[in-house]
């Protein structure tokens, strides 16, 4: 049992027990009700967009769905993660768990995996619902066209509708939405190991999320040089160095209008996100391993 001395001691069974328990916790706390909001939003806008004549209603529906998936998965990850550690500490369940032969590394990893499981399942459910609603609307639109258009014009119009519905090429884009949510969850976990209240964790995480989406602009301005005041330069440089560029994960909008995402680029972005998750997690472990309980 020499490996137990190492702070990264790993037992997959224990990690799985912890993840499964975290997942179960979140499920039994009824966080999935949150996804009902997504369902209402999608179905509601599906009915609402029928009246749009100026813009392709299916395109609007698709953009609503993809945008909502991005926000919902992020919010779900954030809210679930922010409370994990504080709650266990407050209830002293953490003592009971860590008094078992469980390393803090296993505990943290188990918790995070539990959230990842939940996020994965949520994104899957949202995608299925989203694809389902779009498919129904697609059939309605095609039926409508078949009534109104002459047969020779029909194929082109149908093709246009098909292009605006759920296409398989969206999947890599959705995978990156999930990855972004996972990254933000890991960041939230890191913040919660530092924080003494979950309000701080949530607020800071939201701020990082917002800054993360403009970080790219700041970074490019900083890298390009230019004639800003020294104070502003330091500020912008700090922003570029400290915050993740979350905009890099938002590629699904372009995919939705037909831009092809090269496989290499997808894996680069995915690897980049994975690296962020790893770094944030290791930092969280560093903080947590020395934290007094």
């Amino acid at each position, binding site marked *: *049992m020499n490996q137990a*001395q190492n702070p990264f001691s790993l037992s997959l069974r224990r990690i799985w027990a912890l993840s499964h328990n975290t997942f179960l916790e979140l499920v039994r706390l009824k966080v999935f009700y949150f996804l009902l909001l997504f369902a209402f939003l999608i179905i509601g806008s599906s009915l609402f967009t029928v009246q749009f004549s100026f813009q392709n209603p299916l395109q609007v529906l698709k953009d609503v769905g993809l945008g909502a998936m991005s926000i919902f998965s992020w919010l779900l990850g954030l809210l679930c993660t922010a409370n994990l550690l504080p709650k266990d500490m407050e209830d002293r369940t953490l*003592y009971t768990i860590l008094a078992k*032969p469980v*390393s803090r590394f296993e505990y943290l990893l188990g918790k995070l995996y539990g959230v990842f499981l939940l996020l994965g399942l949520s994104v899957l459910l949202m995608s299925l619902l989203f694809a389902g609603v779009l498919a129904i609307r697609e059939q309605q639109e095609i039926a409508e066209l078949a009534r109104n258009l002459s047969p020779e014009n029909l194929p082109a119009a149908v093709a246009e509708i098909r292009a605006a519905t759920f296409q398989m090429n969206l999947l890599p884009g959705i995978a990156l939405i999930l990855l972004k949510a996972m990254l933000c969850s890991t960041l939230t976990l890191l913040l919660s190991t530092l924080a003494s209240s979950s309000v701080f964790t949530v607020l800071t995480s939201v701020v990082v999320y917002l800054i993360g989406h403009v970080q790219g602009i700041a970074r490019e301005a900083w890298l390009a040089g230019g004639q800003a005041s020294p104070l502003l330069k330091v500020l912008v440089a700090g922003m570029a160095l400290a915050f993740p560029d979350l905009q890099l994960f938002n590629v699904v909008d372009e995919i939705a209008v037909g831009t092809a995402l090269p496989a290499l680029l997808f894996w680069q972005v995915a690897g980049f996100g994975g690296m962020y998750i790893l770094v944030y997690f290791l930092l969280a472990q560093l903080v947590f391993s020395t934290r007094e309980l």
Partner: protein
Amino acid sequence: MSATAILIKDLCKEFPVPFRRETVKAVQNLSLEVPAGEVYGLLGPNGSGKSTTMKIVLGLVRPTSGTTSVFGVDSRRVESRENVGFLPENPYFYKYLTGLETLLFFGKLCGLAGSPLRERSRELLHTVGLEEAADRRLGGYSKGMLQRIGLAQALLGEPRLLVLDEPTAGVDPAGAHAIRDLILQCKQRGITVLLCSHLLGQVQEICDRIGIMDRGELLAEGRIDDLAGKKNQIELVLENATPALLESLGAMSRASGAQVVSQRGARTDLEKFFLDVTRHRS
């Protein structure tokens, strides 16, 4: 197999005070040894450092200096907890789990799995008398039930050392009695127990030895009889004694040169001793 269950050497723990240079000394130069098979009671007022000591023994808190080990393994190592069962004070488990699920979860953390885990969990639910409540969520458990499921959880991994923090705090007398019996069963099976409690009567009944802490220091330690017994006095507890019997006992005592110092209902001597020791300090 080490014959020493817990070994604490020169243990110090200081907590930093936020935004100040000073520190709070929670434990100072504590050394103690609990041999395997003994039931050891750690007593002390609130804030005396006994909980911190317990947490250090369990590896939950890092010592500032000194060492603690459990069955010869340094407490900072994960495997030192392989033979330990812990029941925290006022345990809260996951409310959304049922009694059985709670045991299955903690069992997995102890490295158990499959049907042995299931059998062991059922068996422990029976032991702590929660068979009926096995499939109810902990959210609906009473305090006494939570304490009992906590004890079951602590016993899951067949521990050789049980660490119990206020095991009967807030539990009604009947529940407390049941828990006390469980601890005594453990003692009979040779499990070492480290017990923190305020309930001195209970400690006196269960423990072989006690240590008294205040402000981070161990003030007194020893067998209860040695600490609280008066060498030249003996207490006789009688049941259904008639006044005539008492009268003749008094006469016999006087005849043999002994003296009846007091005559009253049985009570705890330990409490007096405890208060004496701690009052002396302040």
